[in-house]
């Protein structure tokens, strides 16, 4: 408890200093605002529903993109992990594709799909599929060989073998890839919204900045941090659940 107190002391002091210097007029923050104004602006945006709407839009795109990207990643990763031929034939292609920064695809997907959810999801899915593909391929290669012999001895069909043995055995390690992809999904979603797509938290940030509302902008950044923190907490919870039989 005492250690917690000591850890909280520096940020509390900084916030207090920031607040009093702004209130007393000792300093003026034209583009930085100050703590109480930031909290007020954030609370207002939360109450009038605008913050929740943009949060929904960003999370919708991020989670849809993550789901689509993970599905593609598991599919590609399984193929690469199960077949040496696929690995040799397609591995270099995927390595080259992976090297393209996903945000560089924004202009292309904008041209193809226009503004809106679809273009955002497509770029997020592209970014998310690689870590999942790599994790899946490694996980599938690492499946206990004895289990594959059991599948052989029971004459399971290739599909049953994949679905009943390989993927469940690889599940935990695929989860690591999905976790990495989730972080990427959120970053890419906000980036796309800031750069080109007029929706979601990223666009709201740009609007607040351009209409000279630094208090609202800081409020939104704090909100984003809270979302990231919450997602991480949910994932580590999923981790502990997975640890049990």
């Amino acid at each position: 408890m005492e250690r917690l107190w000591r850890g909280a002391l520096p940020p509390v002091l900084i916030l207090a200093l920031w607040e009093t210097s702004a209130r007393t007029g000792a300093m003026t923050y034209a583009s930085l605002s100050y703590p109480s104004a930031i909290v007020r602006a954030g609370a207002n945006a939360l109450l009038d529903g605008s913050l929740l709407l943009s949060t929904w839009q960003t999370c919708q795109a991020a989670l849809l993109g993550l789901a689509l990207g993970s599905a593609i990643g598991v599919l590609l990763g399984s193929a690469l992990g199960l077949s040496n031929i696929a690995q040799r034939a397609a591995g270099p292609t995927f390595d080259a594709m992976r090297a393209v920064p996903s945000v560089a695809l924004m202009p292309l997907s904008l041209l193809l799909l226009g503004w809106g959810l679809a273009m955002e999801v497509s770029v997020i899915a592209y970014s998310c599929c690689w870590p999942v593909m790599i994790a899946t391929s490694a996980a599938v290669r690492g499946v206990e060989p004895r289990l594959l012999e059991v599948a052989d001895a029971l004459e399971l069909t290739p599909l049953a073998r994949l679905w009943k043995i390989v993927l469940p055995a690889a599940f935990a390690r695929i989860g690591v890839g999905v976790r990495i992809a989730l972080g990427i999904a959120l970053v890419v979603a906000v980036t796309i919204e800031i750069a080109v797509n007029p929706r979601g938290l990223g666009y709201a940030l740009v609007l607040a900045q351009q209409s000279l509302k630094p208090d609202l902008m800081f409020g939104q950044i704090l909100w984003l941090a809270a979302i990231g923190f919450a997602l991480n907490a949910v994932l580590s919870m999923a981790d502990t659940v997975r640890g049990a039989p």
Partner: protein
Amino acid sequence: MTLIGGDVADQSEGVAATATPALRLRGVCARFGAAVNRPVLDRVSFDVCPGEFLCIVGPSGCGKTTLLRLLAGLMKPSAGTLEFEGSAIRGPSRARAIVFQDYANALLPWRTVEGNIALALEGAGVSREGRAERVCGLVKKMGLETAARQYPQQLSGGMQQRVQIARCLAQQPRVMLMDEPFGALDAITRQILQDELLALAAEQGVTVVFITHDLEEAIYLGDRVIVLAANPGRIAETIDVRLPRPRNQLTTREAPQFLAHRHRLFGLLQGH
């Protein structure tokens, strides 16, 4: 009926009169990699009769496990032929179940005991209702009632091996191939499972090929014991056990014939 090493042509004549054996090996060789000039198995030939309990003993490195993997169809021989009920073994078959020594690796850790047993039935395309019924029966038969809804890692080694045997029985195999199944278990659990296995094999009329490095276990369980020699793996001796059944952990092991076999096998494994 019993055939040992050497010339392939001679041996085939010896069994011409008998019925189709469950398993037939002729001149089987196995080697790992082309560069290795010394084979793991060198011209191994023998037959296994339907319903027979055959034990194979030998020092480590004599190719016991390789032999079993060949019989399961998990591996192909570099020379020679393997037949199952008169037709060549081309790959794994549900009719030939294999019980691995490392039960912890062979069971699916994300499935319960029931789920693990059901896997064999799913492989065979049994309907959901049929599966539930047969799993229930096997759980009872193997004494797994209290563990049915537990996960393998929550069970003792003996119980886990019971689950693996139950899964193999679910395949309704005609041959059970067992690779040192009790090697990792404590002495008491091993004796209990030995007796359960003998009762099961007798009841199901299933043919068993049982690999062990424990020569007393081989004599206790087997109708016949094949002794393999190492480098290269080949048949050193075949012994007809001819001890009365049902066998008993005390009286069978004290029988003069048991001790005679034990002396003989001990000598063979020492290299005399």
